[in-house]
């Protein structure tokens, strides 16, 4: 017994010793710490993911998302080389005998395409398992629908990321659905990222400084969504001079201004965008209404405002305030003509939008630690309203208004520490608290009947939830070996119900040859909110709902592995494989009409599971006169619900086995001109199409309903005939493959006071009629011969966006 106790004590000592060694490694040799921040010369924007290399040690560091880095080296002469795509490389030589904090300023390359690469750097440093960082300058080269550049839609050209409906910005990452993407704008989640019913996202490239995408092997600091993390950082504003841009595309006008509030100390960035559709359409719709004898108008528009201010409190501390507000609004109004004093007036409005705001304080603590504190709020709200009124001279007005709205409000507090615990050892730890309020669906009715007014609202009480998360991630990296171990613990509290989870994350990498490395990772994530959707379009009517006592959280496990090869410092090639299992996904029950249904949402959904497996190939040339990529994904994604499809597994709606995307950009001999093209080939999306029918005999219908011939009698009950339509399985039909070629040509010219850029392009150059949606219905055919009337079933595929030229204009000053 004593021996056993001693063994336990010895074992505990070993475990504690190992932990201490991992977390606080002590070097046997004298070390100093060089820390600092890397910024863009002139503007002072922090430069994230810059590679820093200590030449004599074959070691290095990468700046974090705030441009901060820290590295332990022996005292003496220091030879640093620093590189980042889009900037001229930099070498630093200085003597350091004690801990030193430095500020590095990198000069932006005059053209993204002529970035010089240092051969000593490995392109492998920029590629990681499950993580993608595409330079914003390269994304700007992508041809865009209607000339409206779009950060999120550009991700659809990456392997493992698929689009939903053509032209829309929904992202389906590795067999997941759009609600499983955590989209962070300056650390705040954005719940609905769509404008114009999904055709555009909220983020034009000109406002985003950095974007980082995780598809797997998630670090512990991220949680709450199963399939991806898309971290977007808004530009922070030029600290030394005022600059601006204004641009006009076919659909919107944009303006961006940035400059110093206090030179060298504080700056501000402002961007505004407004659609032009309503301005163009309104005169025509009004004219049409007038021809019909009424006054009316029909309009649709959207806007975005993004502003961010920052203040440098000291060289080691900085404060940021970031605000986004955007909204889509559609309105229709029909009023009586001026002569008609008794006609009714009707109007309708549809509106949805987001507000996110965050305040971030970051500082360098001591010589090795970086701290980030964030307090923020994000809200998504959708509402629609219809109103009818009638007024006669001498009588009080009769008016009826009805509509519904839904919203989600989210308060978030984060505190994170990130730093070195020793040479090659990094640690990140933090805590996140979130308080959400959901109003999934609130309907209201207001009736003014003469002098009597009635106001009614039909609502479920708001659902409130709180999430608390703590996490830590330890990273060990040497030139040939890297190891990441992370742990995230979360508690979710709602309706008196609690869920706890411990989510391990791990990644290991081995550089087995100078230009080759392999990596493998595992991550487990829980998601506590769901999106009720039937379309995958990102329609504003999709409802965000929390996990409840009836609808548990969803979770996923993902195992991923990849091999990466550097062809040259600009060009890398990778093959990644993944296996993902999702539990707790929800889908509308069979037979639910998600428009014509007034039941509690919890009664309308089934809970099931999903699986996806895939192989992703990616050849990426990041800069140079020729640059671009080729991506190919071979994948399979399925869903299984006990109560859907007789419990049999069926293909996920966006299970597209083959997905090829190519992007090529070429700088022409005149460096102010460039052309680019994208080509996409994707297997057709899956839909459910009843492809056979069988007849239920009349007498059986009699038994079921009483009287078949006279059944169309009872209120809203309609039985159109005795046949039953049948689909062998959910999502049994694969649409035709989708493919298209887009091209763009840009020409830039320096004028006296500004630079102007014209962009011309064509979406779907060769006019491929890609399937947009399939409509299944019944059509009544009238004939002069017998049978005079017959019903025929129809299956029609609608194509949209065929050969669409566009033009864009931009002025930079």
């Amino acid at each position, binding site marked *: 017994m004593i021996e056993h106790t001693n063994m336990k004590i010895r074992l505990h000592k070993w475990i504690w010793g190992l932990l201490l060694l991992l977390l606080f490694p002590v070097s046997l040799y004298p070390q100093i710490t060089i820390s600092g921040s890397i910024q863009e010369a002139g503007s002072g924007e922090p430069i994230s993911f810059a590679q820093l290399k200590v030449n004599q040690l074959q070691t290095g560091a990468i700046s974090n998302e705030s441009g901060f880095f820290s590295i332990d080296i022996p005292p003496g002469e220091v030879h640093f080389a620093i590189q980042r795509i889009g900037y001229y490389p930099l070498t630093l030589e200085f003597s350091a005998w004690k801990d030193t904090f430095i500020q590095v300023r990198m000069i932006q390359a005059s053209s993204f395409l002529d970035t010089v690469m240092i051969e000593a750097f490995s392109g492998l440093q920029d590629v990681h398992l499950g993580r993608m960082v595409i330079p914003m300058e390269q994304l700007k080269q992508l041809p865009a629908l209607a000339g409206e550049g779009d950060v999120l839609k550009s991700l659809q050209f990456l392997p493992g990321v698929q689009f939903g409906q053509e032209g829309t910005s929904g992202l389906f990452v590795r067999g997941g659905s759009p609600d499983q993407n955590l989209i962070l704008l300056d650390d705040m989640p954005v719940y609905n990222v769509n404008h114009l019913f999904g055709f555009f996202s909220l983020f034009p490239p000109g406002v985003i400084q950095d974007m980082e995408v995780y598809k797997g092997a998630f670090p512990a600091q991220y949680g709450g969504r199963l399939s991806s993390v898309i971290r977007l950082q808004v530009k922070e504003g030029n600290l030394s001079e005022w600059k601006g841009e204004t641009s006009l595309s076919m659909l919107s006008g944009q303006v961006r201004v940035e400059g110093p509030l206090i030179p060298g100390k504080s700056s501000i960035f402002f961007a505004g965008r407004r659609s032009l559709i309503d301005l163009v359409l309104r005169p025509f719709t009004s004219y049409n209404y007038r021809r019909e004898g009424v006054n009316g108008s029909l309009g649709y528009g959207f806007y975005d405002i993004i502003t961010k201010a920052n203040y440098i409190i000291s060289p080691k501390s900085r404060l940021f305030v970031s605000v986004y507000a955007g909204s889509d609004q559609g309105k229709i109004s029909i009023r009586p003509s001026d002569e008609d004093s008794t006609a009714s007036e009707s109007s309708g409005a549809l509106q949805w939008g987001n507000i996110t705001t965050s305040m971030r304080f970051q500082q360098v603590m001591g010589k090795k630690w970086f701290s980030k504190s964030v307090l923020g709020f994000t809200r998504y709200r959708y509402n629609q309203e219809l109103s009818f009124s009638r007024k006669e001279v001498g009588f009080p007005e009769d008016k009826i208004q009805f509509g519904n709205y839904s919203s989600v409000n989210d308060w978030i507090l984060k505190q994170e520490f990130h730093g070195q615990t020793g040479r090659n050892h990094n640690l990140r730890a933090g805590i996140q608290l979130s308080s959400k309020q959901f109003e999934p669906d609130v309907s209201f009715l207001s009736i003014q009947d003469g002098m009597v007014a009635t106001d009614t609202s039909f609502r479920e009480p708001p659902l409130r939830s709180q999430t608390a998360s703590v996490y830590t991630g330890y990273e060990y990296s040497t030139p040939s070996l890297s190891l990441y171990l992370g742990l995230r613990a979360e508690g979710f509290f709602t309706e008196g119900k609690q869920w706890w989870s411990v989510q391990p994350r791990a990644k290991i990498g081995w550089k087995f040859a100078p230009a080759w490395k392999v990596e493998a990772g595992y991550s487990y994530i829980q998601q506590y909110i769901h999106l009720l959707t039937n379309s995958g379009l990102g329609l504003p009517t999709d409802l965000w709902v929390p996990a409840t006592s009836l609808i548990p959280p969803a979770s996923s496990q993902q195992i991923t592995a990849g091999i990466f090869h550097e062809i040259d410092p600009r060009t890398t090639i990778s093959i990644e494989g993944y296996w993902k299992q999702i539990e707790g996904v929800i889908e509308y029950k*069979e037979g639910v009409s998600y428009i014509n249904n007034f039941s509690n949402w919890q009664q309308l959904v089934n809970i099931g599971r999903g699986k996806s497996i895939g192989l992703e190939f990616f050849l990426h040339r990041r800069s140079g006169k020729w640059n671009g990529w080729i991506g190919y994904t071979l994948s399979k994604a399925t869903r299984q619900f006990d109560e859907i499809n007789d419990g049999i597994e069926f293909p996920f709606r966006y299970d597209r086995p083959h997905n090829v995307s190519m992007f090529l950009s070429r700088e022409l001999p005149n460096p102010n001109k460039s052309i680019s093209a994208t080509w996409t080939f994707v297997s057709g999306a899956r839909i459910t199409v009843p492809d056979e029918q069988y007849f239920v005999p009349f007498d059986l219908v009699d038994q079921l309903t009483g009287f078949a011939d006279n059944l169309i009698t009872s209120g809203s*009950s*309609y039985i159109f005939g005795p046949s039953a339509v049948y689909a062998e399985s959910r999502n049994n039909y694969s649409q035709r493959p989708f493919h298209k070629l887009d091209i763009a040509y840009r020409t830039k010219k320096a004028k006296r006071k500004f630079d102007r850029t014209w962009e011309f392009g064509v979406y779907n150059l060769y006019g491929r009629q890609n399937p947009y949606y399939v409509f299944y219905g019944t059509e009544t055919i009238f004939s002069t011969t017998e049978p005079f009337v017959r019903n025929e079933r129809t299956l029609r595929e609608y194509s949209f966006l065929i050969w669409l030229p566009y033009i864009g204009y931009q002025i930079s000053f």
Partner: protein
Amino acid sequence: MDKTLRIIVRTPQLLVFFFMFSCTQVTELQIPDPEPELIVNGLFTPDSTWKINVSTNTSIYNSDYEPTYLDHAKVSLWEDDSLLGTLIPSGRGNYRLNRYPKAGTTYRLLVEADGFSPVSAEDRIPIHVPEIDNIIWDLDREVVLGDQTGGVYTTNPLTLDVIHHPDEPEYYRVQQILLDSCDCLDHPIWPLVDFLDDPPIFLGLDTRFPLCEPSARDHNILMFRDDGIEGLSTTIECYSSDTLNAFYSYSLPRSDNDTLWLYDYNGIGPDQTPRKTYVRMYLDTWNMSESLYRYQLSYLTQGYNSGDPFAVHINVFSNTSNRRGIFAGYQRKWFLFYQHG
């Protein structure tokens, strides 16, 4: 600069219109004919002899209204694992056996036909007939209801007690059928109604009873399972739709000889009492197997969703081996009641 501005302003306008109006193409899709399958339908109850219907599936594009009946199949029936017999074809896909099914007994069916994969199915009739007690339709009490679409209507509550048997799961269906009614004092000159020309009216039913299936309520039928009842009796308050009031006024007794009708056209009965308002009503109640319950719900839902592009497709539930058709048992009971004004 002016010229540039004009280009900037006008070109997007033209292109927006191009974008919106010139880029939709429609393609008719053709789907190959399905693999041939047998469709077996048969509902059985202790009150009637065996009848099974056999037909075949057909393409979704087939607009013929007439089923493709199959009269050369072999239809075998087992009762608790012993062969009961082979059903005899009687035309139009029907196969009959002059035996009565028994409640609580499990039946298995096997249908074989050349050119088709055999189809089997198994089900049983619930032991108990539906038991409903204390049916009260209170015409004196009015309830004002607002539905979630904003509609407001007045209705009379109908309460009934469902008695559940704990020895087996039960699946209920209740439908309210108005046979006839009279408000003769208000409309003494209206002619009598021929019942054959004016069949019964299926009344809309709604309820706040939480166990009722929402999808069936949309069809004005109450369907619910015994979850939450478990051996108890429970009271359901139902609400007829406001259309009842209209029917209540418009319908008249079918003949003077109707045993219910004791009053002449002048509103005077044999005992010289004035005519009274009355309603004659059936409550059609089912206790059925789980398979039939799911079949009915899905059948009603599919019909209701027909033409709705926003509805999630639902197959009609099937308990046959090829997932088409139904073979299921039930017990049914009619409750006739009157309400005099």
